[in-house]
């Protein structure tokens, strides 16, 4: 029997399960794809990495505001994207299943469906996980 079942390994799920496990609770975290959530894979992290490149290009084009000769750098989007992926890969270990497991969280890669108020069934096996 579990103390806490978390469905979804995004920011909220990772933090909740990490703290609960740190307090000695029996915790399972169910994630259907990759942990890290929207933030790491499609949201904040890639957007900030892209915006950083865009801001720099804009600043260089308007360098005359600071008394410098403006230049317009070429954009190699594949290089920009490569750097975005690199930023994601740097942050990813913080949110990884390995790190959560090291913290004592049982990480399950699956879909989950609630079948009772305190019980969820795993989609692939039908196995039930309960907490109370």
């Amino acid at each position, binding site marked *: 029997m579990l103390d806490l079942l978390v469905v979804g390994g995004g920011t909220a799920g990772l933090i909740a399960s990490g703290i609960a496990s740190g*307090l*000695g609770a*029996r915790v399972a975290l169910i994630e259907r794809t990759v942990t890290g959530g929207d933030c790491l894979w499609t949201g*904040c992290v890639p957007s*900030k990495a892209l915006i950083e490149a865009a801001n720099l290009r804009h600043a260089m084009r308007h360098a005359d505001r600071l008394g410098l000769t403006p230049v317009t750098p070429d954009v190699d989007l594949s290089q920009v994207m490569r750097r975005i992926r690199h930023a994601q890969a*740097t942050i990813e270990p913080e949110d990884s299943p390995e790190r959560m497991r090291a913290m004592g969280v049982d990480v399950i890669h699956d879909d989950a469906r609630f079948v009772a108020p305190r019980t969820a069934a795993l989609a692939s096996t039908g196995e039930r996980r309960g907490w109370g």
Partner: protein
Amino acid sequence: MTEADARQRWGDDAVVVSHDYGHVDRAVTAARTAGFSTLVGDRRGRLVGATVVGPTAGEVIAEFAGAITRGDDISMLYRSVHPYPTYALGAATLAQTYLQQRWLTPRTRRVTRPLFAVLRAADTIVGAIRTWASRAEDLR
């Protein structure tokens, strides 16, 4: 107060938490990871000093300075919401590390583990009574 000042005054009881900008996600997205920050607390966990070296340090230090002036506990840095990913979030990350080191410990678990066990046992008993009650209902 610097780390050295705090160590001299409180020895091992001083709170010192550091990270480099490789752990500040905003710095990672900007490819500007050279830098570090340190917070210093007294033995009761009150913020007494901070050092920030890195991009936007002058902005980031203001939150620490305000907290020190007010005599805030380090935990207050964690309790207020910080946008992600920002350089300013580094303050909350340091405070989180401090709180983890202070509370998510074997000592705490010696209290909380038995508590969780009691809650699980209580839930099992309540579940059994419910099952029994619904069966009794069916028989009637």
